[in-house]
């Protein structure tokens, strides 16, 4: 599903590479944590998978397609097969929960009718039934992140990327979001999550890939944080 082959990424002006000769394979339906201290390069992986940046060397293959050599006009279509959630939720403040999710469908050409059918379903799935018409500022942090997860999942992507999704949430809320991601994973969606929340990693007991200074130092099938 996801294949990193000897990927090296050095940001301009940086003294050492963020990722140094990293190779890693992720199978369809897996749930993988990328962990490591700040600046270790784990977020760079998310950016590479989204094709927000390109590696200096090596190949990134997603869904059997070489992302590194992908033409720029094909990127939007490619991103439709990937959902993504972030630490800061990235919701549109002037749109309700429903509208935020529907927006993601409408801008890729889905009709309003499709949105009316699909959006309430996915909001129900993330546990926001009845709160469709609340604005982000009327929702708690955990609820906002649920909206973001709904938006990422509404298009039924093959892969869900999560960049520190619990970074802004308290421990209890974090656990709820993790249960949600776990449920999404059980539908067959590959989940890649970048985090440094040891509590969560220890509870989930999923595959853990630890990165330090741009290199993979540990890759454990049912790992714990430290």
């Amino acid at each position, binding site marked *: 599903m996801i294949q990193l082959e000897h990927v090296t990424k050095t940001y301009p002006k940086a003294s050492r590479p963020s990722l140094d000769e990293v190779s890693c394979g992720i199978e369809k339906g897996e749930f993988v944590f990328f962990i490591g201290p700040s600046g270790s390069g784990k977020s760079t992986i998310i950016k590479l998978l*989204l094709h927000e940046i390109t590696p200096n060397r090596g190949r990134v293959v997603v869904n059997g397609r070489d992302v590194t050599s992908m033409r720029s006009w094909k*990127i939007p*279509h490619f991103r*439709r097969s990937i959902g993504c959630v972030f630490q800061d939720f*990235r919701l*549109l403040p002037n749109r309700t929960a429903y509208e935020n999710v529907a927006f993601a469908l*409408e*801008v890729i*050409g889905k009709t309003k009718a499709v949105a009316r059918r699909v959006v309430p379903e996915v909001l129900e799935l993330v546990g926001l039934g009845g709160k469709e018409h609340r604005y982000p500022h009327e929702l708690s942090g955990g609820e906002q992140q649920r909206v973001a997860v709904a938006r990422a999942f509404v298009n039924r992507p093959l892969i869900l990327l999560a960049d520190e999704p619990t970074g802004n949430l308290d421990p209890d809320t974090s656990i709820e979001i993790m249960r949600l991601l776990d449920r999404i994973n059980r539908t067959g969606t590959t989940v890649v999550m970048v985090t440094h929340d040891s509590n969560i990693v220890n509870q989930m007991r999923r595959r853990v890939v630890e990165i330090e200074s741009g290199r993979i130092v540990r890759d454990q099938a049912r790992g714990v944080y430290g």
Partner: protein
Amino acid sequence: MQRAKYVLSEVMVGLWRNVTMTIAMIITMAVSLFMLGASGLLYLQVNSMKDFYYDQIEVAIFLNNDVTDQQRSDLDSALKSDPLVAEVIYESKEQAHEKFKTMYADAPDLVNAVKPGQLPESFRVRLKNPEQFQQINDRYKNTEGVETIVDQQRLLDKIFNILGAVQSGALGAATIMAIAALLLVGNTIQVAAYSKRREVAVMKLVGASNWFIQAPFVLEAVAAGLIGSILAIGLLVFGKVFFLDGSLRDLTELLTPLGWSDVLLMFPVMAGVGGLVSAVTAWVTLRFYLRV
């Protein structure tokens, strides 16, 4: 269909969000396009005037008072066989006097003061190419019996030079205004892109196509350009009705009249230039500020 509706509503929202900037953009665009249209009209006008007047233009070869019949007929045959000459008409003293009388019919004192025979006889020569006066002048100015040779084109050239200068001035002003308009378009697009940065980020994230992200911005600029060109054609129509056909009527009758078809012809030119230039500017600006 629905996406078109979305894009259109985004354009309306975009134009309204920053309405003072939009107005500034439209006004500069309108003035610039008006100048462009005016200089285009002047260009058409000068050309049609050249066609009109150069067709009638003559070189007048005035003869001495004591010219002999021999000299006159020699000159006549020389002119008739001259390859530069299209047509030769002889004008006797009597004919000159008749013409003078009709030309100044409303000034009887002047007509009475000039007696038949006082005005010189002449050959009225139409050249194949009105620009070749100098060669005619060189060839015949020393011929016996010739008093002076007058080129009417000289006089017209002065008028055309003035009109040409006005046209260049209008074009120059149009260019300067166009630069101001372009900077305003660029700035408006930057502001629009900034105020929609969250939407754009989400659109990029979920995989909206590039044209879909850019279209509202580009169309916003195009709409401003088109509204500007509508105002500009309005200004041209206003100018024609109130100045050329109004207070400046006497002057314009001297020139060839400016037709409505020419004025209306400027509209597609201005709309095309306004729309296209805005679109390109917006698109280039987005390349820098949106990086889709």
